[in-house]
């Protein structure tokens, strides 16, 4: 490998990891929004995946190929618990009940000190998530979403996003689709969390709160949700930007918040108003 490439990887390793993980998180947000729902629990699902993964590795010493699926399973279970009742109701119910999830989990992480390390979090997590693994998973997820999007399932999802009532009348089992989307998105977020934990060696209870949830939403809204690629690009820009504009680092959250405001008010279909083509 060329020497400058080595240097580049060395300097920006954290950033490269971060972009891949954020790409997965952006896709997890896309998955929910593609059926016209809004989850504010993606950060909480990520945290669940991170803690599950880290604990299984640290306490039980399980191999990573067991740890990774397990950290998708736990958030999926919680998503089922919350999505079951709320997804039969209008969209605000899911948003409201997921907005509290992160806060409750934070309290649990802090108070179950013997298991979770309390406020100090967990450290010494082995670096098992390589760059190639992260990006391979990201690529697989992208291809999957692209395939689903082009199929009859994608058409049904787009129909629900546009008009839930009309979609139901078309024979689309709306509640099942919504629950499925939420569960898949929780699994993806959990995997992203597990990868993040195994690439930074440390996790803490305050990393998965409100700000992270909103940041994940800003990825999706910057890119737009017309195609699965757009939110990943949104994550790329918003993760790399603070590195490029160091002086603005303090205002990172302000910028993320403003992106959402501007996107909703002026660019309702995102900066990249693309639409998935189904060769019709």
């Amino acid at each position: 490998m060329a020497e400058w490439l080595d240097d580049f990887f060395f300097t920006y390793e954290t950033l490269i990891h971060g972009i891949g993980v954020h790409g997965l998180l952006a896709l997890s947000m896309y998955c929910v929004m593609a059926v016209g729902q809004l989850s504010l629990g993606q950060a909480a699902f990520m945290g669940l995946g991170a803690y599950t993964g880290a604990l299984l590795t640290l306490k039980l010493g399980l191999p990573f190929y067991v740890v990774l699926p397990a950290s998708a399973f736990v958030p999926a279970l919680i998503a089922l618990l919350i999505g079951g009742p709320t997804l039969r109701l209008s969209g605000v119910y899911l948003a409201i009940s997921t907005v509290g999830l992160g806060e409750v989990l934070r309290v649990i992480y802090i108070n179950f000190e013997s298991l979770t390390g309390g406020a100090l979090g967990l450290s010494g997590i082995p670096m098992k998530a390589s760059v190639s693994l992260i990006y391979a998973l990201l690529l697989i997820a992208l291809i999957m979403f692209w395939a689903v999007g082009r199929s009859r399932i994608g058409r049904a999802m787009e129909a629900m996003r546009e008009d839930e009532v009309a979609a139901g009348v078309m024979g689309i089992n709306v509640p099942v689709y919504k629950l499925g989307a939420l569960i898949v998105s929780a699994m993806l977020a959990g995997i992203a969390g597990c990868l993040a934990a195994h690439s930074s060696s440390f996790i803490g209870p305050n990393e998965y709160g409100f700000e992270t949830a909103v940041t994940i939403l800003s990825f999706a809204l910057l890119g737009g949700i017309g195609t699965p690629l757009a939110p990943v690009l949104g994550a790329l820009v918003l993760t790399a930007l603070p590195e490029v504009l160091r002086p603005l680092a303090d205002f990172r959250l302000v910028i993320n918040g403003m992106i959402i405001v501007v996107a909703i008010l002026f660019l309702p279909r995102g900066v990249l108003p693309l639409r998935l083509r189904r060769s019709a």
Partner: protein
Amino acid sequence: MLAQQLVNGLVLGATYALFALGLTLMFGVLRVINLTYGFYFSVGALVALWLARSVGLPIWAVVLLGGVAAGLVAVVVDGVLLTRLRRTKAGELPSLMVTLGAVLALYSLSAIWLGTEIQRFPFDFVDSSAFEIGDLRISLVQILIVCVTFALVGLLFVLLHYTRVGLMIRALAENEDTARLMGINVDAIVIVVSFVSGLLGGVGGVLIGLNFNAIQPFMGETMMLRGFAVIIIGGLGDIRGALIAGVLLGMFEVLTASYISSSAKEAVAFGALVLTLWFRPTGLFGRKEVKRA
């Protein structure tokens, strides 16, 4: 001691109810889940703190002006963020998202500006004397909190049911298009409702600030979870339900803290929220039609 816990729970619950009242009013009339609402709570408390410290106003003026300031902020925020979406009938989720982005920006800005350390009212600003009945202790601040809550709830009731503006607000809550056809100046009513909601949230912030004597910009954020729990348990848009659910939640939290553990208290609101959604999604007193898809 149970009686003491019940009194403390009632006081806490009264502030929850007051806080949730503005939130449910906003949803009931304006059809938005407004996440900037928690920020009005912080604004109320921060303005009150500044007035008490730097201007030296008495406690009643601080409560009142804290509320008014939050009400004005609410009007401005609603005007900037939601007017456009309301005109295009953008629906519930876009308005929820826009307020979500805005509230993160607002909190972060105020944290950059004011710092995140906990700040307190001047020593001896809060009268710490109390009535004692046997072992039972009821402080003046607690009495103030309950009285202010009852007064505001009473005023809101009179406003909604015995004034022309109240009639217009209720008409708007039923149906915006019909309200317009009836010649109601919807934009003006939206301003009134935003102001009243902001005021309720702001006063809630001042009262909680006085109760715990701990104020910082992010204090509204943790409050939002309780606000949501209360309005879901009480039924979205249901004012009476919000009152009862607020008081109940306060009581449960205090009882949980004293009989189980103080950290379990934080999970009460969320647990109650999820249980309500499973078993009575329209709220404890809800009769509202749930649309099926």
